């Protein structure tokens, strides 16, 4: 037998998806910026390609990262992805070796059993049949988990699972039908011919014992083919588009392409790579503390894909970055959210099915209307010359205990510094950036840059992680930017300041913008270890919580904000520390309002422990320490 009409749905689907993916990748490549095109070309003939193959195997097939965070969920993803891959891989080889000729059309491998019902009775053939059955059993076990997860998400260790749209549901149903229908089709065929291995063979023999197997098999082959065909055709407009897209994502990432601050191919590829696994939902404090369950990154990705209005979703986010850290696909979720914030009101296209397949691309995000704000009233700055600038930031001015502590530490260290915003400075620009107003932010950045440049300093110390992040990332400065925890660590290492050991139990809360946002994890804990008894918490480093005070969320109610703060503070103070330490004025203020435990910035604890030494004039060691700082 060479051909049977039931293969037609499968063939249509398969060739459709191949052509579609090729067309889509051509468009994506075309939309890349020139440097990114070059990166991709270079990557193709270099190490990135090899790295990508490895990563595709580890992440897209094995799902290593999901396995690490959640074994059962990982197994579910792995059995479906890796199992299906093995089935195709070994199926193709099977058709190649045992079929009538080599290099068969794909359907020959997929429907091998139909065309070779007598196959697999003895020897190597039987062993191979056993392998194929084993793979099918592997997939079916994962499928069973997937079905259970859809109805009882807690079974796979997830509190929430994503809600689906209609095309997702149809695609999901056809996906679910693929493997059971294959099992039944193969089993009936095997039952009729007395072939098949442990799964299809025994099930087939049992079914054939009371059913007309040969007649029943045929409709199931049709069903198998139709489910495959439907799945392929719906793939581009369902979340399963992540299967082909993730391969592009991995390769692009390995080639060194970054999200940047404008929509483009890479952000779109990432959006399509989201499988809606829902891990970001469980990680989100808006979900588990505030009960807001419709704004998480998985939903944002879905809304962007569907051209839905995202304005309600994008602004209701603390931008704490917990989901970025947890995303098993490695999608840069926060940068994509920022791109959406920069855009104005999203246009709601009249959607049709064509639009779903080739949606109007993210490049079309309309620019926000330029506001009329202007900062011409700012007077030109004339700062004093100094080696080190201290920029407290507006939040630090609102928490003067931190400011006073830093002055005490700076004075004790003997460095030559200038407190540039002592009389009130200009905002670092980040609140505007978080609101998507980049142009306005740029004006403030230029103003501050000039002031810093005029001062001739080589180091800029700030007390606020919000300022720190923006000084690091969005200013083009040739000074070293340090958060005050890093600066204090340096002073301690140099011996410029001496401290007593405080007999106090301290737990550290890592602020979002300092930790996950800027990767500063070690210095704060090292400083705390130096002066106090630092205790472990359940939420360290990348897994730290958001205090809830984030500037980035403009939608959340104050009650919900307070609930987030309260839950986080309760978790952190579980073991009754003497001090809840943090390194951000905003975290401090937020926590102080909800806990009885003393909340203090690291600088306050250091200032408390400080041994104030008499000020030495013209001391040699003093000059050295300035020089050393100059060479930081």
């Amino acid at each position, binding site marked *: 037998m060479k051909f049977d009409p039931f293969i037609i749905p499968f063939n249509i689907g398969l060739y459709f998806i191949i052509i579609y993916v090729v067309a889509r990748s051509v468009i994506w490549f075309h939309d890349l910026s020139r440097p990114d095109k070059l990166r991709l070309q270079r990557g193709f003939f270099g190490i990135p390609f090899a790295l990508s193959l490895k990563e595709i195997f580890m992440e897209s097939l094995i799902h290593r990262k999901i396995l690490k965070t959640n074994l059962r969920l990982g197994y579910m993803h792995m059995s479906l992805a890796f199992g299906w891959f093995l089935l195709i891989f070994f199926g193709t080889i099977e058709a190649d070796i045992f079929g009538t000729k080599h290099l068969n059309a794909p359907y020959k491998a997929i429907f091998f059993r139909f065309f070779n019902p007598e196959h697999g009775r003895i020897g190597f053939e039987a062993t191979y049949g056993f392998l194929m059955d084993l793979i099918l059993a592997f997939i079916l076990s994962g499928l069973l988990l997937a079905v259970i997860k859809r109805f009882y998400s807690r079974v796979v260790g997830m509190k929430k699972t994503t809600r689906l749209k209609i095309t997702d549901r149809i695609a999901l149903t056809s996906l679910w039908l693929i493997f059971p229908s294959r099992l039944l089709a193969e089993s009936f065929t095997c039952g009729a011919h007395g072939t098949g291995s442990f799964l299809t063979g025994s099930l087939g023999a049992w079914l054939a014992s009371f059913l007309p197997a040969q007649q029943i098999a045929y409709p199931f082959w049709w069903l198998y083919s139709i489910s495959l065909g439907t799945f392929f055709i719906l793939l581009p407009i369902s979340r399963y588009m992540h299967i082909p897209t993730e391969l592009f994502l991995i390769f692009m990432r390995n080639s060194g392409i970054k999200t940047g601050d404008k929509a483009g191919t890479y952000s779109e590829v990432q959006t399509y790579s989201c499988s809606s696994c829902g891990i970001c939902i469980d990680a989100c404090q808006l979900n588990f503390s505030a009960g807001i369950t419709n704004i998480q990154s998985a939903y944002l990705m879905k809304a962007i894909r569907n051209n839905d209005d995202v304005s309600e979703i994008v602004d209701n986010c603390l931008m704490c970055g917990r989901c970025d850290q947890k995303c098993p696909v490695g999608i840069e979720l926060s940068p994509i959210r920022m791109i959406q914030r920069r855009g104005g009101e999203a246009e709601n296209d009249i959607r049709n099915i064509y639009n779903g397949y080739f949606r109007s691309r993210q490049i079309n995000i309309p620019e926000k209307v330029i506001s009329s704000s202007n900062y011409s009233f700012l007077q030109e700055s004339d700062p004093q010359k100094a080696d080190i600038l201290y920029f407290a930031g507006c939040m630090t*001015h*609102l*928490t*003067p*205990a931190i*400011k*006073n502590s830093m002055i005490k530490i700076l004075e004790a260290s003997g460095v030559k510094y200038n407190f540039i915003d002592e009389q*009130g400075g200009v905002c670092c620009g980040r609140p505007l950036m978080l609101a998507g107003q980049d142009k306005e932010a740029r004006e403030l950045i230029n103003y501050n840059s000039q002031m810093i440049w005029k001062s001739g300093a080589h180091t800029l110390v700030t007390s606020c992680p919000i300022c720190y992040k923006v000084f690091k990332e969005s200013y083009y400065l040739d000074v070293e930017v340090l958060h005050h925890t890093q600066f204090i660590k340096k002073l301690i290492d140099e011996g410029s300041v001496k401290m007593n050991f405080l007999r106090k139990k301290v737990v550290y809360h890592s602020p979002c913008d300092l930790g996950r946002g800027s990767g500063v994890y070690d210095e704060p804990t090292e400083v705390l270890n130096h002066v106090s008894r630092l205790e472990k918490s359940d939420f360290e480093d990348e897994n730290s919580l958001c205090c809830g005070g984030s500037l980035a969320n403009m939608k959340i109610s*104050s*009650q919900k904000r*307070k609930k987030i703060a309260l839950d986080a503070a309760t978790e952190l103070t579980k073991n009754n520390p003497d001090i809840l330490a943090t390194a951000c004025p905003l975290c401090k*203020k937020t926590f*102080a*309002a909800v806990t009885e435990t003393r909340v203090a910035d690291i600088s306050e604890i250091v200032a408390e422990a400080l041994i104030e030494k008499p000020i030495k004039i013209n001391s040699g060691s003093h000059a050295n320490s300035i020089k050393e700082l100059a060479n930081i």
Partner: protein
Amino acid sequence: MSKHVVVIGGGVAGLEVAGQLSKAGIEVSVIEKEINTGGHLNNWYRLFPDRRDSSEVKEYLDGMTHNHGINLLTNTTIEVFKRNTSHFLITTNGGKELTADAIIIATGFDLFKSSRKEEYGYGIYDNVITSVDLEKMFRKGKIALTNQTVPETIGIIHCVGSRDEKVGNFYCSKLCCVTAVKQAIEIREFLPDSKVFCFYMDMRMGGAFYEELYREAQEKWGVNFIRGKVSEASETIENKLLIKVEDTLAGRPLKMKLDMLVLMAGMEMSEDGEKIAGIVGLKTGENRFFAATDNLIGSNRSNIDGVFYAGSCTAPMNIPETISHARAAVVEVIDYLNDGIR
């Protein structure tokens, strides 16, 4: 057999309720966590609007309690609260058991903890004080800075912890405005050479004779009222306080050096009140104060039959309002005890 009512809280509302109930022949016990009764009244110097000494009100309340044989349990808190079909059982921290036919909650308010508005520097800078601290200075008869010199310029910040989304209090505490006016006048009386500046969002002079007092402060005492919320305070080298504020009438930002800053702390649901809400199972509102079942005609009624509210545990109130509210509670309780309806 005579009925027994337990009043929780021995401040203005609690004592008034207790006195009036006793007069009506009902046996009353008052549970007060502090050693002395009187609550916040003990902190005040003179009371607006006619600036009588607070001790006069205290004397009246003490007279009520002493003359009518009320069972006063000071230094006492509630540990266990149970309800039977017809009465309530209360166990105190001392292990004493009380049986009551009705309960009156008169737990009052707490003053907003001004250190929560760290930007004003309470507890961090010298010479940033609260309205209560100032009242205490008045009582001592001396207004002085920490270095014992006399302040020349004094700023008063209204709405500290009230109408402030950042601290989660949307409501108006209602009597800080008039307190500020009263204190501004008193400062000027004590220190005739001083200058006083009040920074307000709105002047809410809704009570009887408040507006008159406000006018007097401006015309007779030359107090300056500047509409604008102070954003932050900092300390200068010469130990003065530098505040930043926007004068919203003039439409310009303003910086001002002051010797002393007085924070008009708002009113919040008392912490012990919140505990009692938990123990008894009483509902609280979005403002965290006890929620009455009817804001128009039943502001003394709670969600539990036989438990009633009196005074500022339900909302910010001044003393005349508290007294009225307490007397209203007495009527509700007597109705309940007679007819079993609330």
